[in-house]
């Protein structure tokens, strides 16, 4: 299980690295928001892998909150882009 979790965290880190590069290089606001949303999803996956590794659900409420708040952020910035241009 330890090897599996190390491989999982490595894959998640590479995905998060790619999303971070997209956040930095842009070019538009919409690209950055998409990549930040993906970053949040990868973070949620990391919490799930951690819960699977340790076997207890200590951080699982954080997953629910982050999934909800991430959607709020995305939709609000979508309204901003529509109003102001990307």
């Amino acid at each position, binding site marked *: *299980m330890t090897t*599996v*979790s190390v*491989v*999982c*965290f490595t*894959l*998640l880190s*590479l*995905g*998060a*690295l*790619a*999303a971070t*590069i*997209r956040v930095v290089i842009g070019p*538009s606001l*919409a*690209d950055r*928001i*998409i*990549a930040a*949303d*993906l970053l949040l*999803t*990868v973070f*949620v*996956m990391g919490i*799930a*892998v951690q*819960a*699977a590794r340790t*076997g*207890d*659900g200590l951080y*699982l*409420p954080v*997953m*629910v909150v982050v*999934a*909800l708040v*991430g*959607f709020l952020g*995305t*939709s609000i*910035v*979508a*309204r901003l*882009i*529509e*109003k102001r*241009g*990307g």
Partner: protein
Amino acid sequence: MTVIASCLLLAGCALALLAGVGVLRLHDVFGRIHAATKPSSLGLLLVCLGAGFLVQGVTATTQLVAVVILQLFTAPVGAHLLGRASYYSGLLGSRTVLDEGNKPIPDSSQDGID
């Protein structure tokens, strides 16, 4: 049981990597929305399924199910909102072959945000 959970976790994490590569490599906003939404939803589903085999207790399992349901509801809605906003702000890339949207301006003076 552990073998099944490990396979599910690895598949989900590989999909997360795939989503990252797609967001980095695709050419315009709409391709990136596509790449960021679908593989990460399926990946989160697989990871939560795999974690559900390994965590103890009804509370933890319920929270995993709640996260999956939340993601499956909010990811398409968020992607649609972002895609609509990007389309009307003129973010179509130069490689777009077909645009069937007939882009009029959205009437944003009526919707009450400033």
